């Protein structure tokens, strides 16, 4: 009975509101919207020039040939066929995917494991948090040059330590076998702080009773991690997984500074190749075509993630 009354009262209220709104003179309504768009103007102009228009331009450019003077001619799919026949095209995709996969093995697992360990430590926690986040706050170029020096096969720090420990040394960035791995080590070191802190915060939100209940049933350490820690942090784990894949598929700074795309083009990633097409060969059409392929793949991947997580929420 009461619910019906409440809903009736609400509907009367709404009807009144609607009538009132209709009584607002046209000029007043126009003014209200105009004021709102005045607030939006700055952002709309910036998005328009530096985000929306470039998206359109990227798409258009990939079907055009552009010369220095800015003249453009439509070339259909020529840019795409051109890059597909470039041997670097496939090696670049292989390099990006290899970087992404290696970064998953190291860069994705390391912060989570670190967070689990740090969460168990009961002393100097502030110091640990400070440490892991320190590299995140370094200018990446400074950190990369430092590591380039560490990786030097002759007087680099890593080989020095290995020699002192009588372990085999490595050519690091200069060998086709270890170059990519070296990039991933650096990337993990400089980026792991954010992931670790985000995981730490989500570990803190796991109700302690769950662990107590599991212990009563005799679960050991690893079973507790597998059956409680991971399921409880599932959402943040999957979000960071998606963000990391999207970020690592766009890797540029690491190969650009550390390895220069070498040795033998082994670390020339997709974004690196886009940069080379555009600024070494002034071939904007090919750069745009390759960029568009990457854009479609990553936007599709991100869209699929959003769609899947929405569906997961509804269930």
């Amino acid at each position: 009975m009461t619910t019906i009354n409440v809903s009736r009262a609400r509907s009367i209220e709404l009807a009144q509101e609607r009538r009132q709104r209709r009584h607002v003179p046209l000029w007043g309504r126009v003014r209200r919207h105009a004021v709102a768009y005045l607030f939006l103007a700055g952002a709309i102009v910036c998005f328009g020039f530096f985000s929306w228009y470039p998206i359109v331009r990227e798409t258009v450019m990939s079907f055009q040939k552009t010369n220095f003077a800015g003249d453009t001619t439509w070339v259909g799919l020529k840019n795409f066929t051109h890059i597909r026949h470039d041997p670097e095209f496939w090696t670049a995709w292989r390099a990006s995917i290899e970087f992404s996969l290696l970064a998953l093995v190291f860069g994705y697992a390391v912060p989570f494991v670190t967070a689990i360990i740090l969460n168990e430590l009961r002393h100097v926690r502030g110091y640990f948090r400070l440490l892991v986040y320190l590299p995140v706050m370094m200018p990446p170029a400074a950190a990369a040059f430092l590591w380039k020096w560490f990786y030097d096969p002759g007087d680099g720090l890593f080989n020095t330590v290995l020699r002192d420990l009588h372990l085999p040394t490595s050519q690091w960035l200069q060998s086709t076998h270890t170059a990519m791995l070296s990039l991933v080590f650096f990337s993990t070191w400089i980026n792991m702080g954010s992931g670790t802190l985000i995981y730490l915060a989500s570990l803190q939100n796991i109700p302690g009773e769950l662990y107590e209940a599991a212990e009563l049933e005799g679960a050991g350490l690893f079973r507790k991690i597998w059956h409680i820690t991971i399921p409880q942090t599932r959402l943040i784990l999957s979000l960071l997984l998606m963000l990391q894949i999207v970020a690592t598929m766009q890797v540029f700074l690491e190969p650009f500074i550390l390895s220069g795309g070498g040795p033998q083009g082994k670390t020339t990633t997709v974004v690196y190749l886009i940069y080379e097409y555009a600024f070494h060969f002034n071939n904007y059409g090919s750069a745009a075509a390759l960029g568009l392929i990457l854009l479609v793949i990553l936007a599709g991947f991100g869209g699929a993630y959003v769609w899947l997580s929405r569906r997961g929420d509804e269930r």
Partner: protein
Amino acid sequence: MAQFDAPTRTLISHAQISRGHGRIIYWIVLGFFLVVFTLIFIFPLYWMATGGLKSAQEVIQSPPTWFPHVLKWSNYADAWRHLKLARLLLNTTIYAGGALVFQLVFDVAAAYALSKLRPVFGNIVLFLMLATLMIPATVLALPTFLTVFNLPLLHINLTNSPWAIWLPSVANGFNIFLLKRFFDSIPEELLSAAAIDGAGPLRTLWSIVLPISRPILGVVSIFAVVAVWKDFLWPLLVLNNPAKQTVNIGLYQLQQGAPQDVFTAALFIASIPMIVFFLIFQRNIMAGLTSGGLKG
């Protein structure tokens, strides 16, 4: 920060590590990680700082020395003077400060309009802004660079000017997302009360919405500053005049000519401002990262 330090029950119970065997193992594990983490994260900084103090021969000597034989402080002076680090640091600070101001003004105003003023087609504008989050930034670098080089309609070239950093930084869908979500949580009654008192939208924003929104404004500000300090590809494209470059690009250009000892000193100097910034705003940065940053 309280959420970190709250005495929660974790994987291993308190009782387990406070007696006998558990206690010994705990202290061994703690000591182990203390040493390993310090080595991994502090030692590189030590190597950089002391590398900048070594002489030109000592710094490339193999095997390297763990501590400089002679402290060559002049490296730091040389780096500061000849490599124009002051210029680079000042440039980056100006770019970061401007980006912060423009993002706060334009993105806050836009998010407020989308959340509270709700104009016609507001949802479409919001969708278009959030959709840019799906677009990889590195792919857009080329068309955006060409746009900045010759701005459509206006035909001005923004490269080598601060505007090339400031204005594109406003086109940040994540800011709009964070701010709008926060503004959505502000109760409507608070705003209608202000409206009854005769406050216009600008006044409401200034004296009611902004004071409540301080936490989220802090998060957006920190992200804005850090993003400019860390960005590489974009400033590499739009700032080719050495007098206008940021720290990252300046270091990249310097690396070709400078001797290793002076260059290492330069790396260390270049790292200091952000690390100091981090030590000062540590709490805000970490809280922003975990609470404001990723809960969407």
